[in-house]
Every structure is written in C-alpha cells, then in structure tokens.
C-alpha cells in the first residue's frame, strides 16, 4: 500500500469550527473525545490551529457574519483537506432554514466531503462518518 496514503488514513487531525450552531453539536463532538468513545484510538486528535489540521469539522449553519471568517479558516488548512458537515444545521440549515441571516448549510460556502445529519448527531455518527471518509480516501 502507498505509505503516504496509509499515513493519511491513519492520522486525520481534526479542527473544530462552530459556524453558528446552537452548541448542541459541539458538545456531542466533545463527547466523542471522551473516554467512552475515544476517537484518539483511530489517530484523530483535536488540534487548536487550522494549520495543523486535516479535517475541518464544522457545526452550525453559516451565518452571514461568519461567512468570510469561515472561508479564511478553510483557506488556512493545508492540502489535502477534508470538510465534514456535522449536524442538520451544517448540512442544510436545519432549524434555522429560511432565517434572514444564514446561508443554509456550509456547502453554500466551501466544498463538503461528508455530511453527518442529526440534531445533534450521536458521537457514534462521527466515528461512522470518519470511517466512511477514510475508507473512501483509502480506495481513491
């Protein structure tokens, strides 16, 4: 197997960005880091800086306020990068659909690789999504 691809599949570092959600998804994300689900088993670490990350994990629909900042954060992640839309808000706008101040879903702003629906999704869903993303990467 290609060793670079192997290393990419084995160590996806996550940067978490809240683009205007209600914080429900963020708490579920933190639950995935906790002892019960422990995504570090798969080599995923939560990093503080977008420059260190591989996977941009976004929660929340994108508000107009945050749109430009979000784009900038996206540009700061070095290639190859993946975007995961976490929660109904991030997928389609969720409960904030048709509000005057939101773009409905982050795929209106940046390209998205993986959608995780749910309001909020369970921590298992993150692991499932990560596995699917990495399998797709492995087969590419």
């Amino acid at each position, binding site marked *: 197997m290609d060793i*670079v691809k192997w*290393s*990419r599949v*084995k160590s996806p570092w996550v940067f978490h960005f809240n683009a205007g959600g209600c914080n429900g998804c963020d708490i579920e994300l933190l639950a995935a880091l906790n002892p019960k689900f422990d995504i570090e088993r798969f*080599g995923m670490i939560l*990093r503080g*800086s977008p*420059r260190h990350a591989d996977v941009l994990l976004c929660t929340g629909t994108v508000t107009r306020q945050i749109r430009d900042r979000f784009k900038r954060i996206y540009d700061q992640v*070095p290639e190859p990068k993946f975007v995961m839309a976490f929660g109904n808000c991030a997928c389609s706008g969720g409960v904030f659909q048709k509000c005057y101040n939101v773009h409905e879903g982050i795929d209106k702003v940046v390209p998205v690789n993986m959608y995780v629906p749910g309001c909020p999704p369970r921590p298992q869903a993150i692991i499932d999504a990560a596995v699917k993303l990495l399998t797709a990467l492995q087969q590419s």
Partner: protein
Amino acid sequence: MSWQVVAYDLFSVLIYPGIIFLVALALFYQWVDRRVYARAQNRYGPHHTGPRGLLQPLADLIKLLAKEDIEPSAVDKMIFRAAPILLLTLVFTALFMVPISGTSAIVSFEGDLIFLIFIMTLFAILAFLAGWGSTNRFSLVGGMRAALQTLGYEVPLAVSLIGPAILAGTLSVSNIVAWQAAEGFWSILLNPLGFGIAIIGIIAIIEVVPFDIPEAETEIVAGWQTEFSGRKLGLLRLAHDLELVFVSGLVVALFLGGPTGPIPLIPGIIWFIIKTVIIVFIIGFIRAQFARFRIDQMVSGSWKYLVPLSILQIIILQLYLMI
C-alpha cells in the same frame, strides 16, 4: 585514522546509537507518553495503527511531511524556515552527549554538562525566535511565554543538575555515569530533592502540562507553533519527541546511573530504555493529573520554592562530602 575508525564513527553517529536509532526511540516514547496519558484518563489512546497503535507517531510524522507546507506572506522567511531545522539539529547535538548504549557518549569532554544546560536554554530562545518570526499574535505571545518561562525553571534545574557533578567531582556526563558505575550506587540516593526538581524542570523544558504555558491550546491556539504547518510542523514534533528522549536520558544519566544496571548480563541499551521509559511514564502521569499553571504562578513558584530547595540540596551534598 584508519578506515575502520571512520566507518565505526559514521555508524555510531548515523545508525546506532545515532540519528536513526534516536528517531525510532523518539517515536516510541511519544507512543508511550500518549498511551500513559490516555490510560490515566480511562481511555485507550492510539490503538489501531500497527500493533497496539505503535506506528501512530510514525503515521503522524509521514503525514505531516507529505502535507502542504503553507508559508504565510507576512512571516520572516529566514527565521520561519530555519527554526525547525535548527531545533532538530540542537536536539541531536545534545543527544550525542548523553550516554545511551555504554558508559560513554558519542561525544564527551570535560564540562559538557554546562554545555548541555546551555543548549537547553537555546531551546527556549529558538521557540521565542520561531514565535517572533511567525508574526502572528498567538505565536508572539507563545514565544514571549517560552522565554519568560525560562526565567523560572532554568536556575533551579541547573543547580539540581550540578548536584551529581559535585558528588562525582567531574562536569562531564559520561564521567558521572562511569563514576556511578564504579561506586556501585545511583546518585539519586543522595539527591532525592535534586531529582524531583530536575523532573519538574524537564517538564518545563519540553513544554507539557502543567508547564505547557507557551503552547496553551485553550488560550493561544497552539502557542509559538500556531503558524507552522506540514513539513515544518512535522520536524517540530520530531524535535519535541527527541527532546523527550534527551531530557529523560539526561536525568537517567545523572541520577539513575545511566545505561548500567545491577544485572551485568543485560546490555546497557536495555537498561537505558527501561529507566527512560520510567521517566516518560512519570512525565505522562503528571501530565494527566495536573492542570496548567499560570505563567506568574510558575515563575514566582519556582523562585520561591524550587530555588531554595535546590540550594538546600547542594548544601546537604557539601555536608555529606565534608563528613
């Protein structure tokens, strides 16, 4: 010099116990550290990369080396590019003076302990330079804190490292190890206070919790490493792991008798790994138990408590030598 000597020197610098061996050891210690940290938190830690997650640090390193290397337009190019390489070089230089496989290191001369203490200060200076060169407010704050933190730990650490040197009557790390082997006892027996202070000091050098003030993730993103990405970040992480090998190896050499042990049949390198893993274990455990100190607490605490204690240790040693 005959070619055998040259070949042997090349072998010992490049392969064993030189660069390749040290890198493997560094990645292994990162794994040990992460596992201990995770187990202390009732987690498993890296588990699915290679047997029991052993290859996780290697996967991280390769991934980072193969990633895009972003250089922000505002950075000071020269410092930004040089910092990871310089840091790596410095750590290797320091590691060559620590006895790893036998009582003598690859390089040793009278006074190399002082030189090592100097190099440890340079780590912090480089962190400051890297933060400064990044021209990012978080990096800058991180770099400032790295420099400020040195003021706290440097003096007690240096004084406590000198303790074994006073006992052995020499300032060379290799000679101190040889002295302990010849006397048949470890200098931690007379130096318990110094050992404790040295552990605290090395935690501050490698910037992990509770002294990860320069990299405090919840306050200043990733401290002085914020702007580094890809290759440079990979080298920085490798340098950090090598620092872990270096500081634990130094403490083992000075306080725990270095790569020698009570059973002579077992080769020195095994003793070295056993003892350093114990040190890494202690560091990882402390990391899991504590929260971060504030920078002022760290500096004033170390001047109020650690410096007097380390001087007390020296006085005890002098009294012992006089009797």
